[in-house]
């Protein structure tokens, strides 16, 4: 089970090199996303779409909210 992060934790971890992944659909990502985030919609998350992620660095995933 992945660890949950608060906003301040996200900022700290990103400053240390963590990768941000928005899992919302592309249209929502295009409209607005966190700085430096890449878009991998949940429905497409798989071996091919994660190829560009660096496995040696932490990954932070997010969507719209917790609901």
């Amino acid at each position, binding site marked *: 089970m992945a660890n949950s992060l608060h*906003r301040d934790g996200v900022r700290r971890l990103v400053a240390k090199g963590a990768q941000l992944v928005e899992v919302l659909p592309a249209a929502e990502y295009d409209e*607005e996303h966190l700085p430096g985030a890449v878009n991998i919609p949940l429905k497409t998350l798989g071996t091919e779409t994660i190829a560009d992620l660096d496995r040696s660095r932490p990954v932070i995933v997010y969507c719209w909210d917790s609901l």
Partner: protein
Amino acid sequence: MSPRAACRLETLGFTAVYDYTAGKADWLAAGLPTEGTATTTLRPGALARTDVPTCAPDETVAIARRRVAASGEDRCVVTFGGGVVLGVLDQSALAGDEDTPAVDAMRSGPATVRAHEDLHALVGRMRARDVAAILVTDPDGRLLGLLHRDDADAALAQAHQTGRQAR
């Protein structure tokens, strides 16, 4: 959605996976920077004045009065613990006994809005209730600034002329 994405990444072999459960809504509500086509959208957080006079609960009305006089604002926000809004000293409180601690003179629990609220709708509510300015806080209750209705009206009018979107 993000918990499932985090689990999926772990099944794909990633070992350091974190879930920002509060997500983009939380980030926007905190007025933090974003990228994308909507970043020019007018929002309360971007229009709020950030040089709002503040004081600690145990500071006196006299101290708050001096800060307000130097700021050009008409109120002092009482904050605690890294900027969490406790209350407001308005003109009436500021005119009271100068030795009273702010916490005893303040109006508790003032109305606040989030940084990413719909600006049009917010200004409409402020106008209907004759509210000249409202505090903008992040989801943790920390002060981000003070949104003046006049500033918002001016920005919306300019946006209307240039076709810029307000949200």
